[in-house]
């Protein structure tokens, strides 16, 4: 059946099977592989995207259920070459190592800051509690979100740190 939705500000129309999950619609039908596909059981949260501004696990949502709605993925965070403050925060505070959980974490962080621009640590930990990171122990993710809260319009581009040879 035909579905039409707005993905990262662009209206898309595709013919899909009703059983197609939103995560596969984004990754395979639209080629937006920034959304990761993890546990497939709504536990790990790497597939989180925003539907009408709210974090949703796209492995447990049918693409047809988002017909007429607005979807935002990690590809829709940056404004051209300017990264979203949450992306900058994850860079500044080392919010990722392997990067698998990162797209979901970034979107949940974005939704949290849209709702609560100055969340404390407990609020951040609660917001990301449905998402699993196996690298950071969450400490740097929490710091990254705090960084974004403290730099709401991001930061001017910093010169890259020199890495000793």
């Amino acid at each position, binding site marked *: 059946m035909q579905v039409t939705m707005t993905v990262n500000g662009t209206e898309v129309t595709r013919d899909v099977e009703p059983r197609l999950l939103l995560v596969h619609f984004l990754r395979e039908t639209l080629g937006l592989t920034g959304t990761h596909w993890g546990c497939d059981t709504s536990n790990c949260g790497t597939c989180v995207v925003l539907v009408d501004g709210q974090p*949703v696990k796209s492995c447990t949502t049918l693409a047809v259920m988002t017909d007429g709605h607005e979807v935002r993925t990690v590809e829709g965070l940056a404004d051209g070459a300017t990264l979203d403050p949450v992306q900058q925060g994850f860079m500044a505070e080392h919010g990722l190592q392997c990067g698998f959980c990162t797209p979901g974490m970034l979107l949940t962080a974005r939704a949290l800051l849209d709702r609560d621009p100055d969340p404390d640590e407990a609020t951040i930990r609660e917001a990301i509690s449905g998402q699993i990171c196996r690298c950071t122990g969450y400490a740097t993710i929490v710091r990254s979100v705090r960084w974004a809260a403290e730099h709401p319009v991001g930061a001017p581009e910093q010169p890259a740190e020199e890495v000793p040879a």
Partner: protein
Amino acid sequence: MQVPAPFDYVRATSVADALQLLDRHGPEARVVAGGHSLLPMMKLRLARPEWLVDINDLAELRSITRDGDRLRVGALTRHAELLASELVGELFPIVHDAERVIADPVVRNRGTIGGSLGQADPAEDLTTVCDVLRAQVVIAGRDGERVIGIEELHRGPYETACEQTELITELRLPIRPRSGSAYEKVERRVGDWAVAAAGAQVVLGEDGTIADASIGLTALGLEGCAVEAGAALLGVHPSEEAFAEAGRLAAAASSPVEDQRGPVDYKRHLADELTRRVLRSAAGRAGADVLATAVSGG
């Protein structure tokens, strides 16, 4: 990769339309709201509906309104919306206690109260909450609405009195003066099912004694409320002694089974301890000065 078996999908535009669609497509049609119970079951092929009737557009089922001495909650109200409602938290703190530990915040953005009750999972938290609050459930069918008590809704694991061609549309929670309520769950990690949980409501009389008390247990093998434990509290002043007796009776009424979440004696211990804690908290929220009458540390 987990993918549901093929099915056809249709969106309902009203309650009447949903009922008509369920009727037309027969026993192989299922209602989908949040989808966080049904879709995982479909992925595992534990459910293979031929039709999904999506009710997410039915805005009329998504409201929280105070109506005299009851709170009316539309069946499509999301867990996150219940948790965000100040009115719900003020009237029924037990709902907020439970909602904070149901699944995780992202799942709560999608899951609905009607879906939770309709799924009738024996380890589901809101059923206990509704038992304790003596909720009523409104079910719409071709011949109009019927209202049943929560105890009539559940017929066993994954089975309810809501027929194939009917739809749960609303939950009604009676508002009781001088009442307090609480819920506490022990879980292994965020989003897991309860190892065990307990909920309670305490209603005080004008003389400060307990005029009504209800206690429910989750994942502890008890259908409905722990009636004897509640009855033991009637007419007494809230005290640690009284709560300990109620805890003992609630544990005796439970029949937990051993699984990967723990052995029977541990779960029975939790039934006792969690019952005392929720009674303490519920009585405190009802305005009782429990500490003044405490005799021991429980």
